[in-house]
């Protein structure tokens, strides 16, 4: 292997020179990160278009005849699955994980670069298999992103033939890709940190990605198990999940299977999945807030412990997604309790973000706007989660737009705001160019206010009893007329937000060529990735010598220091110290 992953370079390393080796079949974590990100953003845009089509139908029913009921269900399913797994999971871990872990930990690359490369190509295969289901007879599955049996494999559901099989196969391939990537991320964090980079000196971005990867490695097998068994039910006619059932007047021959078993397996994966998406966002937003408020993160240790606690607790709350499936009341009590307990470490994180801003030297840069926007959307989404975590409140609300509003705020908009903030933050390092600030701010305000215009009214719709997953409401007597006008307004807002993403894409693409040249450390940040000898960093990241870390990642505005930041690789000056507690005896 042409890499020395963790050592200083004594001898020249043969870097790849051909275009193919450098940018396509590349083992460089930075290139793989960009490949992952581009594919993830591409499928994300597909899912965004699908949501626009759904909104057209919901806002203006019977106006757009190309969205029929079957298509609507297929759009819902593909939108949900793509956004959660193929966009957010892949982008946070495959994209940001790949880019940031080696750079922030002071490594030359991932410890298994070849496997890292294969991970991307297998991910691409998973995406292609998924998208191919749009072109097969019957189209993609319309079973809903939760793919609940028995309906997922019965003929009444759109895409019950090839569509569902391709979905399950694609998920299986994705899990293989993720496992290869995940082994890399965890092993690199554990094994390839540079000298002085103790675990407790790692930036919170790395902590969040690290813990999310562990969750993914342990939770994705549950999805694999359910996907394998459901594929067998659908193709070979086994009865793992399928009960004795009559479908469209015929007996498909199943007997004795347990749909509830699928739900347990699915949510044993599905709930940690929420945190697989949220923990990297938590970590990254901590670093954005601290850097752009020029202040150390408040309660670093608490932040780390909260990440670990949330990771552990996320495995014992899964059945709160199944209250309406019916369960022993004591189980409901147990899962409601654990669900509310997980709010404690999460709330600690929110308080700490706000306290980080308190008396900070806040720079309202574009990444900072997105980070602060995240605090708002996350608090709103989190608070409605407290409602839904209670069995008695969840039962009437579960099948309404309240839930749609809740989870889009908490795990749709919030992580996406962090994704945008993170892209704006690291773009100068990744590309060596600056983006246009005016366009960035315009993009922020459209996205932030626009998403509120979409999701806040959904809570009211839910309380009014508007059911989710319905293709059309028709003349439902118990719903006032205002429901229809709210739905139309939401659709208009959604289309505006979707269109506003063109500003972002334009800004990112045009700045690649026309953006001003970026200085090596435009945000005056302390973490290692900003201290590389080259911008963008070259193959091997650090030139001949690996960095040595002398301090934590948050030495901002240290009293007495020359600048308002001290990078992690600057030695401690015995006359000055550098830590905020310098001279204080504990």
């Amino acid at each position: 292997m042409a890499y020395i992953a963790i050592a200083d370079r004594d001898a020249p390393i043969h870097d790849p020179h051909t275009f193919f080796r450098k940018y396509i079949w590349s083992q460089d974590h930075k290139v793989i990160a960009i490949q992952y990100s581009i594919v993830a953003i591409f499928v994300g845009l597909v899912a965004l278009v699908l949501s626009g089509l759904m909104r057209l139908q919901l806002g203006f029913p019977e106006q757009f005849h190309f969205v029929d009921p079957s298509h609507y269900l297929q759009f819902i399913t593909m939108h949900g699955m793509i956004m959660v797994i193929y966009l957010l999971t892949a982008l946070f871990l495959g994209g940001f994980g790949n880019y940031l872990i080696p750079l922030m930990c002071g490594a030359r690359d991932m410890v298994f670069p070849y496997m890292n490369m294969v991970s991307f190509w297998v991910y691409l295969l998973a995406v292609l298999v998924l998208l191919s289901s749009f072109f097969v007879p019957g189209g993609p599955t319309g079973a809903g992103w939760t793919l609940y049996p028995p309906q997922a494999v019965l003929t009444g559901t759109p895409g019950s033939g090839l569509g569902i099989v391709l979905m399950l196969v694609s998920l299986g391939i994705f899990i293989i890709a993720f496992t290869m990537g995940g082994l890399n991320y965890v092993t690199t964090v554990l094994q390839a940190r540079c000298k002085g980079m103790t675990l407790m000196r790692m930036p919170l971005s790395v902590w969040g990605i690290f813990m999310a990867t562990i969750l993914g490695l342990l939770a994705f097998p549950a999805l694999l198990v359910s996907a394998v068994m459901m594929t067998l039910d659908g193709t070979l006619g086994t009865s793992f999940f399928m009960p004795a059932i009559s479908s469209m007047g015929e007996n498909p021959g199943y007997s004795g299977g347990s749909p509830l078993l699928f739900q347990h397996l699915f949510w044993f994966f599905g709930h940690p999945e929420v945190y697989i998406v949220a923990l990297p966002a938590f970590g990254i937003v901590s670093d954005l807030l601290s850097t752009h408020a020029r202040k150390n993160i408040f309660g670093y240790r608490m932040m780390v412990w909260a990440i670990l606690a949330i990771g552990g607790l996320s495995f014992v709350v899964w059945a709160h997604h199944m209250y309406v499936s019916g369960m022993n009341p004591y189980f409901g009590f147990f899962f409601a309790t654990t669900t509310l307990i997980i709010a404690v470490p999460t709330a600690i994180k929110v308080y700490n973000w706000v306290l980080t801003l308190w008396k900070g030297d806040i720079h309202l840069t574009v990444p900072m706007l997105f980070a602060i926007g995240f605090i708002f959307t996350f608090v709103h989404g989190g608070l409605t989660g407290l409602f839904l975590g209670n069995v008695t409140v969840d039962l009437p609300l579960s099948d309404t737009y309240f839930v749609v509003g809740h989870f889009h705020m908490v795990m749709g908009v919030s992580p996406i705001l962090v994704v945008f903030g993170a892209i704006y933050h690291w773009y100068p390092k990744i590309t060596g160019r600056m983006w246009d600030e005016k366009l960035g701010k315009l993009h922020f305000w459209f996205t932030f206010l626009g998403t509120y215009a979409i999701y806040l009214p959904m809570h009211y719709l839910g309380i009014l009893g508007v059911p989710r997953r319905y293709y059309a409401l028709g003349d439902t007597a118990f719903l006032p007329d205002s429901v229809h006008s709210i739905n139309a307004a939401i659709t208009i807002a959604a289309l505006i937000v979707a269109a506003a993403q063109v500003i972002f894409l334009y800004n990112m693409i045009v700045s690649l060529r026309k953006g001003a040249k970026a200085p090596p450390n435009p945000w005056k940040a302390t973490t290692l990735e900003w201290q590389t000898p080259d911008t963008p960093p070259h193959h091997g990241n650090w030139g001949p010598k690996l960095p040595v870390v002398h301090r934590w990642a948050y030495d901002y505005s240290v009293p007495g220091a020359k600048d308002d930041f001290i990078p992690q690789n600057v030695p401690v000056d015995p006359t000055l110290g550098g830590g905020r507690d310098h001279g204080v005896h504990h």
Partner: protein
Amino acid sequence: MSNTAIVVALLVGVAVWFAVASRLTAKPWENREQPGDVGAIHTAPARIGLWIFMAVVTSLFALFLSAYSMRMHQSVGWCHLTIPNILWVNTLVLLAASVAMQLASSAVGRGSRRFAQAALIAGGGLSIAFLAGQMLAWQAVGPSLYFIQGSPAIAFFYVLTIAHGLHLIGGLYVLGRASLRFAGGAELIDLRQSLSLCAIYWHFLLLVWLAVFGVLLFL
């Protein structure tokens, strides 16, 4: 559900150990120099990678077995599987393969090339014999789709043995690569890690098989 609970308990245990072992109470803002602290674990990446992979596979099989027990308890008319006798033989064969892998690994450590060669051939051969034995077991439980559709116990038997077998085939691929290097005259010292990791993986797959077999027998 109990299997799932055990997995969760294990996870929590690992997390607590991790927290204690990695000094998560350090106060990094105090900026005390920590001389000689490389931070990273002084273990080869491949070894750490293997242990993490084994954790993932443990999770996979714990969930399969969890599903098996829940499916059994949640349905009426579950027919128990008649365990084919050949599975006892297969278990012994896999045990022998595991021992052979251990012997190969220690022979390479000692520098004994001839012994290592014999043990490697034995380990690989016994593993293939195990896979062949599993296929005979399929013949015994019900070789056609008719049985697989009719009995969830038989369907689970297929799924579990195939999942286990695929992991063993993955191991054989890695072992095959190491064996080619061995046959090509690679220095024993360069093969030490590969074979030691193979041995660990074989012991692990033996444990997984014992767990699967135990659940099939006793649940």
